[in-house]
């Protein structure tokens, strides 16, 4: 551009006067290729998700949470296969063994050397040569395998419940908000009644009829769980549907379905993802809570909550059973909460620096 202008100006006038200073040809320098390249090299356009990802990475807490979640999911998937013990393999001759880990057993103070709290080496006493990384329970089952197996089931229930909440909540919320009027009114009254019923009461009552199982526990949680998602999606859609881009799309002849799925829901994605992130730890907690009050899964399958519950039986003599499962369930909850908080911040365009 500068080239063109200069040539153009000089052709017309020959000499340009700026503040009585003559601009002659030799004052100018060729910009050359470098300048042209700089002009072309634009910053790549950024999307909402890319932006959020950059902000998320800067948030130390959330990023730690994310890494922990990935690690825990990896262990839940492959942990049970890392040693040769099965999760329901019982052997009373090796019951209640404290944890013992190769290499780490040489550091006595971290307590992974197979010595129980009274100071006897249970492995030597029971003549067990194998290593049980997290120890064994009262039936001689390997806790490492059981805990990761349990984590897998807990995570499975949580993800299933979160997905169902998501589907029902998004559909209900967006329909209610988009069509508005009487439909919205009726749908909101239903939600208000459901909100007034304490979740856990419904869950407990339903499990009394349905009998505990992975599916019944998940369903019991979903029956009231979708309400908060529906409310959030409704709020978002109500806010969005009055905006110009929706009007423009409608003017161009977009159908209701396309408007909802193509514009309204993608634009509500931030709050939807955040809500899901908080649904998962809640579901894990609820499942563990149910195990705790005697409405959990039936043996031999075990969830994390069941293992924590079992750990209480022999807390005073064999604390290792409670400690490992408690630490892992707490870590899962902390990671998801941290990630959820981080996502809330990173999806907020106001936080952009």
């Amino acid at each position: 551009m500068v080239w063109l202008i200069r040539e153009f100006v000089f052709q017309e006038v020959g000499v340009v006067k700026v503040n009585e200073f003559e601009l002659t040809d030799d004052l100018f320098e060729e910009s050359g290729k470098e300048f042209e390249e700089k002009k072309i090299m634009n910053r790549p356009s950024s999307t909402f998700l890319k932006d959020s990802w950059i902000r998320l990475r800067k948030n130390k807490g959330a990023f730690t949470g994310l890494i922990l979640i990935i690690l825990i999911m990896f262990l839940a998937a492959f942990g049970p296969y890392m040693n040769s013990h099965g999760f329901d393999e019982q052997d009373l001759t090796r019951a209640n063994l404290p944890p013992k880990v190769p290499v780490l057993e040489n550091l006595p103070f971290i307590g992974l050397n197979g010595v129980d709290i009274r100071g006897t080496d249970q492995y030597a006493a029971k003549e067990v040569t194998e290593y049980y990384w997290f120890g064994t329970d009262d039936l001689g089952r390997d806790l490492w395998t059981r805990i990761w197996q349990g984590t897998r089931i807990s995570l499975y229930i949580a993800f299933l419940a979160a997905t169902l909440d998501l589907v029902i909540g998004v559909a209900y919320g967006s329909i209610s908000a988009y069509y508005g009027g009487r439909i919205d009114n009726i749908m909101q009254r239903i939600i208000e009644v459901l909100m007034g019923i304490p979740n856990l009461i419904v869950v407990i009552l339903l499990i009394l009829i349905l009998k505990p199982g992975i599916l019944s526990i998940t369903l019991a949680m979903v029956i009231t769980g979708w309400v908060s998602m529906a409310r959030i999606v409704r709020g978002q859609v109500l806010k969005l549907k009055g905006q110009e881009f929706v009007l423009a799309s409608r003017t161009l002849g977009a159908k209701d379905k396309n408007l909802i799925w193509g514009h309204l829901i993608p634009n509500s994605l931030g709050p939807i993802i955040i809500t899901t992130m908080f649904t998962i730890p809640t579901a894990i907690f609820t499942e563990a809570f149910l195990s705790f009050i005697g409405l959990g899964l039936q043996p031999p399958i075990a969830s994390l909550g069941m293992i924590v519950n079992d750990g209480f039986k022999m807390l005073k003599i064999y604390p290792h059973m409670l400690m490992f499962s408690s630490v892992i369930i707490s870590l899962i909850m902390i990671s998801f909460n941290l990630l959820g908080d981080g996502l809330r911040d990173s999806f907020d365009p106001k936080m952009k620096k």
Partner: protein
Amino acid sequence: MKKYIASRVGYMLFTFLIIATFTFFLMQTLPGSPFNDERLSSTQKEVLNERYGLNEPLSVQYFKYLGNITKGDFGVSFQFDGRSVSSIIGERIGVSAILGAQSLVAGMIIGLFLGIIAALRHNTFIDYGAMVVAVLGLSIPNFVLAGLLQYWVGVRLGWLPVAFWEGFEYSILPTIALAAFVVATMARFMRTEMLDVLGNEYITTARAKGIKEYTVIMKHGLRNAMIPIITILGPLTVSLMTGTLVVEKIFSVPGLGEQFVKSILTNDYPVIMGVTLFYSLLFIIVILIVDILYGVVDPRIRLSGGGRREGK
């Protein structure tokens, strides 16, 4: 305002009716009868059924059931011979109420304090410390915390009793286990609200007028920041109610929660249903109070005709 309260009460009654209906039909589908005794002959059973109205049509039984509930009669326990469910609730609720109230008050005071300090020392070490405490309090399940406290403070260090209910020191560990969630919720909430309020122009004005910093924070800041606390009372009550179930079980506290868990394990259905109804009623009343209070504090809500607060 009257109209608003009336609509809230209406919702409350309707919700309770739904729960009561649900529990009634649940009782019908569950196996077992109070007179499943092999020593009873069929005519004796007939007489008993007659006497307790169990051979009447379902609709009659249903309305009788609803009628009894309004009189506070939740039926008779299977497990404890002939004891009424309401007398069991009455006997057990005291301990749970003390535990709940203690946790709520202690948790709110500590949480309030943490939240305010964190907001005043925003982005400092103190702020981060308080928020770490808050995330831990929100994330660590109450039964895990109870187990850890019981083991480390009770068994290993031997500072406090680990079970039963025979004096104030017995209530300390269960209270901590229950209050952690309250502290965390409160601290996070207060921090956000305080930061929000302190950014307002009237705070700058107050400071510019030369009012003492203490007065600015307590009178102009805190008072305004405390209004929305009403909104978290609902979730807090729920957490305390469910928390008492597990915490009372772990510490063998003879409260309503412990009884409820025991009844589930022994299939004592009348007690389960009675306590469920009782808990629901409690919850619904708290929600009602929260809604009305919020309507009083924030006129926009009652004017818009009873829209509920956002977020749960």
